[in-house]
């Protein structure tokens, strides 16, 4: 080494070379540092681009739904299906009442049989009721006839319009292929909606008469209604009475609606959106009219998620508290990997288990007489929201557990020490210091668990019962034991069998968009909460 005095003003050669190394190892002009940087950069960019493409694709395919749906709804009105549905709703309401009466009769029948009466005695006891129920059921016959006649007309109109649409499409295809002659050969006779619906509306005076007769018959049937001894039975009959009276009272309004109905009234542009977001019916491949309302699916997803979280949150968080605060190192070494192992079970296997074991076991449990006081018991279906919810809980426990445990472990040790030093016991320390200090972490654990559950497909498809209907919440807790269908389930089930680009296909994509948005929001909120919490602790 040269002495300090001799090199006071210039760096030594070797140091200078090291600082200005111009002949470092390079590939294509890139140093190893650059290569590493671009490698990771590239990976990140690929991930971002793929995600963006997926999002764009999802939205592009989905948004087209609204245009198609709008046209569909327009045709629904033009062809007069909407008009016929006024009558259909009337008939449906009546049918629901008849069903109520039948259910009431069945209950009474079982009760009487259980009391030891012979079939003859039971039939005798129910004779006056049966007479009433028959009169009640028959009262609608003429209305039903009208409905069926008009349905035929409307469907015929709709079919014509559909055929025209297809031909138009065909012609456009030929034109764009340059085959003008062939295209000209295709005949398109425009449908005269005014005339077709005019015929239907012309039957309104006749329908008024039919409706009046219906009201009379129904009123007479109600008059003949017997008084029964069993108060429960009587209450059910009374409920039907109330509904029937309401129906009779609403008849003039129905007729008025039909009178005011106009095939040409414009369908507002928002109708497609509202009928998707707030539509209570998801009905496909119907001879009459398809409906793509997401509400039953959304409610189904929400219901199973609520059940799953109601089970998984207490279990997951308690397990996290146990592992992070109570368990010794050995128990920790057993419990933690075990819980985390659950997430390694393929969900289809859990689905099998749900069908083969859990569903049956739960139903068996619900049938034990000791539990019959529980609302909704015994369950009528083996596969229902509860079955799926229990399994989804299992799926989300590892997520909730791991994240909640992290949150608890992240609470600075000195909070815990301070609490113990003040004479707190373990329980007090956990409840008053550790959990509050990690609350935001725990909340985001729950949210991410929720995200996990709402996106799960296989289990709900296999175990939720797949009935597309909003559960009957008037049954209180019983709503949890009804079969439901979910947003994920419907996509998985129907995507395979739809025509690409068709309205049904696009509707499924829209469901996907809703699901995607929901997950995004959940994740975003969870991250915000964690972020806030980091700031407040750090």
């Amino acid at each position, binding site marked *: 080494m040269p002495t300090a005095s001799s090199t006071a003003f210039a760096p030594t050669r070797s140091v200078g070379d090291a600082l200005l190394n111009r002949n470092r190892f390079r590939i294509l002009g890139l140093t190893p540092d650059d290569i590493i940087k671009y490698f990771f950069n590239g990976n990140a960019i690929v991930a971002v681009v793929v995600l963006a493409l997926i999002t764009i694709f999802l939205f592009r395919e989905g948004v087209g739904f609204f245009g198609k749906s709008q046209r569909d709804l327009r045709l629904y009105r033009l062809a007069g299906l909407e008009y016929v549905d006024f009558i259909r709703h009337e008939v449906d309401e009546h049918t629901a009442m008849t069903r109520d009466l039948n259910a009431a009769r069945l209950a009474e029948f079982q009760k009487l049989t259980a009391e030891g009466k012979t079939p003859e005695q039971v039939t005798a006891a129910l004779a006056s009721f049966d007479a009433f129920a028959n009169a009640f059921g028959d009262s609608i016959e003429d209305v039903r006839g009208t409905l069926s006649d008009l349905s035929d007309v409307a469907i015929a109109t709709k079919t014509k319009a559909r055929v025209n649409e297809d031909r138009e499409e065909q012609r456009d295809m030929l034109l764009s292929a340059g085959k003008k002659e062939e295209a000209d050969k295709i005949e398109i006779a425009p449908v005269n909606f005014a005339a077709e619906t005019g015929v239907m509306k012309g039957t309104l005076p006749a329908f008024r008469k039919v409706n009046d007769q219906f009201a009379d018959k129904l009123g007479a049937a109600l008059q003949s209604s017997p008084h029964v001894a069993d108060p429960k039975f009587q209450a059910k009959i009374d409920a039907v009475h109330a509904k029937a009276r309401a129906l009779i009272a609403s008849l003039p309004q129905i007729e008025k609606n039909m009178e005011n109905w106009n095939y040409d009234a414009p369908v507002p542009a928002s109708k497609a959106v509202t009928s998707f977001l707030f539509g209570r019916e998801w009905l496909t491949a119907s001879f009459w009219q398809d409906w793509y309302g997401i509400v039953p699916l959304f409610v189904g997803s929400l219901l199973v998620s609520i059940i799953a979280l109601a089970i998984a949150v207490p279990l997951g968080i308690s397990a996290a508290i146990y592992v992070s605060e109570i368990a010794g190192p050995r128990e920790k070494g057993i419990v933690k990997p075990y819980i985390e192992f659950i997430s390694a079970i393929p969900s289809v296997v859990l689905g099998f288990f749900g069908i083969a074991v859990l569903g049956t076991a739960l139903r068996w449990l619900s049938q034990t007489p000791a539990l019959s006081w529980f609302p909704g018991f015994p369950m009528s279906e083996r596969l229902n929201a509860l079955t799926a919810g229990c399994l989804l809980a299992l799926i989300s426990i590892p997520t909730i557990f791991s994240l909640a445990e992290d949150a608890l472990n992240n609470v600075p040790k000195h909070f815990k020490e301070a609490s113990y030093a003040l004479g707190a*016991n373990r329980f007090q320390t956990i409840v008053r210091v550790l959990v509050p200090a990690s609350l935001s972490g725990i909340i985001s654990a729950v949210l991410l668990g929720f995200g996990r559950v709402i996106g799960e497909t296989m289990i709900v498809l296999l175990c939720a019962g797949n009935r597309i209907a909003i559960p009957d919440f008037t049954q209180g807790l019983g709503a949890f034991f009804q079969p439901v269908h979910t947003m994920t389930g419907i996509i998985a089930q129907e995507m395979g069998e739809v025509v690409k680009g068709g309205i049904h296909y696009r509707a499924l994509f829209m469901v996907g968009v809703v699901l995607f948005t929901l997950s995004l929001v959940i994740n975003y909120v969870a991250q915000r909460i964690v972020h806030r919490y980091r700031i407040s602790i750090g």
Partner: protein
Amino acid sequence: MKLPDTAPMPHAALAPPEESSTMIEVENLDFYYGQARALHEINISIPANKVTAFIGPSGCGKSTLLRCFNRMNDLVDIARIGKGRVRIHGIDIYDPDVDVISLRRQVGMVFQKSNPFPKSIYENITYGLEIQGISDRKRLDEVVEKSLRGAALWDEVKDRLHTSGLGLSGGQQQRLCIARAIAVEPSIILMDEPCSALDPIATSKVEELIQQLKGKYTIVIVTHNMQQAGRCSDNTAFFYLGKLIEFAKTEKIFTNPSQRQTEDYITGRFG
């Protein structure tokens, strides 16, 4: 059972430095972390209502001994007592019949890093009472005021009692922790380097506070700051490699230590 006051001490130098009733009595204490022995044969009698300073190089076991006094070491899985006794008020605190919870209420602790709970100032103080089941609002209000006055913090925070304790300055937070410790009315307060994260002004406030508190509480303070030990303690114990080397009146330790190692350490000629 031997009476603490008459027990013969193994080394003359380690006898209680003055006539005073003994609050904490450590007898032949060996302490291990796993296989590693952190304390060797410690014998010390800490007098009541005095300030006792623990000094010594890093890693010599000061904190370990301090944490033996309120059994905070119970929280460390691998920690265990090899042999020996720790008596407080003459009671062996490692006796199975001893209730750790009540022990810790008697022996308060202030940590090196101020650690108020992420709760309001008020809730920080009342925490120790609430876990005892005291919820009478009037009583709590009184205790909050008394403890904050005791910790010389009242005037600074009286208008913001319900704001977060984490919003205070470092020195204020440390005094809040002291207020929290005295709220449960312990007889002993253990302080593990309470000023190491504070600036000189905040430090002098805490030192003043220690002076005010010492009439009512027995205080044991761990410090790396020789001046601080000199300023605010009555007796000083010097530890080295897990052993108690010397325990005497503070003036004596700083002016005329009887052990060579002590002298080297306080004059900075250590190592």
